[in-house]
Structures are given as structure tokens and as C-alpha cells.
């Protein structure tokens, strides 16, 4: 399942980057930074990404997930800090 979730996140990040055009988001891997730190996207782009991902995950896996998280703004624990962390977080929500 993780590979399928990765594909969904990869597509969403690539779609977002069509507008943002960030060098760091061109090649999407588990280590690609998303939010927080000097290479992260801004908070509005994060909202757009997360809201779009909730929809994409539901369409792909047929299960509703809420990806809002109180640790969103934490540099260390935020599930949005990198593509890998976000993929793991979605897998965890899907399996819950």
C-alpha cells in the first residue's frame, strides 16, 4: 500500500509544483522536504496540498481520511515535514 500512497503524494506534489516551480520539489523522493525549514513550501500551499490529498486519497482508496494534525507546525514531528513522513502518515490513517 505504501507504494500506491507514495504515487498519490508524488502526483499531488508535482501538480502543486507546476504553480510553485521550486527546485526542491522537481524530483520527488521520501526525503523531499514539504513544510518547515528553509526549503519548505508556504502555509497556504500546504493547505492546498493537504486538502487536495484528502480528496485524492478518498478517490484512490475509497476511504475518507482527515489529514489535519495538531503537530502540523512542529519541525520535528510534523507529518508534513517531508514526502516520506506524509506518506507514512496517510498509510497510518488508512489503516486506522
Amino acid at each position, binding site marked *: 500500500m505504501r507504494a500506491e500512497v507514495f504515487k498519490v503524494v508524488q502526483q499531488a506534489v508535482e501538480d502543486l509544483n507546476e504553480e510553485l516551480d521550486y527546485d526542491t520539489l522537481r524530483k520527488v523522493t521520501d526525503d523531499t522536504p514539504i513544510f518547515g525549514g528553509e526549503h519548505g513550501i508556504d502555509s*497556504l500551499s500546504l*493547505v*492546498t496540498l493537504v*486538502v*487536495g490529498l*484528502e*480528496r485524492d486519497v*478518498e478517490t484512490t482508496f475509497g476511504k*475518507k481520511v*482527515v489529514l*489535519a494534525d495538531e503537530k502540523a507546525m512542529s519541525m520535528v514531528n510534523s507529518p508534513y515535514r517531508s514526502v516520506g513522513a506524509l506518506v507514512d502518515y496517510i498509510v497510518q490513517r488508512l489503516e486506522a
Partner: protein
Amino acid sequence: MVITGTRKGIGRHLVDYYRKQGYVIAGCSRAPMEETVDGYRHYCLDVADEAAVQDMVFDVVKREGRIDVLVNNAGIASMNHCLLTPLKTVTNVFSTNVFGTFLFSREVAKAMVKAKSGRIVNFATVATPLKLEGEMAYAASKAAVKSMTEIMAKELAPFHITVNGVGPTPVKTDLIRGVSDEKIKALIGTQAVKRMGEYRDITNVIDFFIRPESDFITGQTVYLGGIS
């Protein structure tokens, strides 16, 4: 358009009023509607039930493609002295008025973010600025709604979504059933315009908030009757 708390009172009136304006409407309440209304779909749910709210919003977007307007009308009141108010009452009032408004706003705004446009109208009350004795739970919950309105307005502005509130004076509905005539008379006495509120006073403000020209109006709560 999505309207919460549509089975009776102001919500029921809003269904008829906005159907006449041509809106396709989805609404909800805990119990079913007594009659069917053409162009209106009813969902039975508790507005504080996260999964049920998500299911409803998902279904509405799937059927209609988008949601242009959300009116967070569902609300409950409680009249009691603070020392005689059980925690359960405060929990119930906050669940419907605050958590329900939050959940519907969050879920509907997600659909509006995609469309990059939308109007959210929340219900406040004059009990908050008047600091009415005996209405602690209700007035405090609506103070939270006012604050939520102001902050959501800022956070959703980049997506071209406006968030505003209307604060009615007493209108003849079940909500004020338990309030004595004497108290209502005293309350009306504090208003600049001394009369009972009517449904048209409320729809007039909502109409203003949701019209296309009001895209520069957000984070505002308009109290009726000259109360501020």
C-alpha cells in the same frame, strides 16, 4: 447552498426563501423534515458528529459539483443561572454551536478552496455583546463563533472565501420558547430599534454577505436592532 438546522425556525424559513431565489439546497437536522421541498435534500445528523458531517459534505459535492454558500444556522440555547448549569448543558451547547460550526466550515471550505470561491455565514447572537444574565453558555458559545468567524476570515481570504456572521435579536422561534415575555420586552428595550426581529431582517444581512459584490466584506459580525 448548505444550511444547517433546517427542520424548524429560522433554518426552515431560509430553505423556502433561498429555494425561491433559485438555490439548490442541502440541509440537516437531527430529525427528518416533516415535508419534502422541491430542490432541497435533507440529511439527518448531529452537526458535531465529524464523520457524519464529512459524509454529508462529500455527498453534496458529489451530487452538485460545488457548494457556493454555507449558512451555519444550527444552534441551541440554554437559559439558566451559571451556578445552576450542569456541565452536560454547556457541553451540548458548545457541541452544536461551536463544534458544529467549525466542522461544517472546515469541510465545506475544503470544497470551496478547490473552487477558489465561497461564502460562509455564521450565526451569532445579541446575547454576546449584551452579556445577558442567564445565558452564559449560549452567549459564550456564540462569542466563540464570532472569534472563529474573524480568524477563519483571515485564513480563508487567500482562497477568495468570505466568512461573516449575523447576530439576530429575539425572533419568534422555539429557541426563545423558555424566555418570559417580560424578559423579551426588557431585551427589546436595550435595542436602538425597539421591535422583535423578523426573518426578513436576517435574510437581508445574509443576502448582503453572499452577493458577488461583497467579496471585500469578511470577518464581520452584524448585530441587528442597533446593538453593537
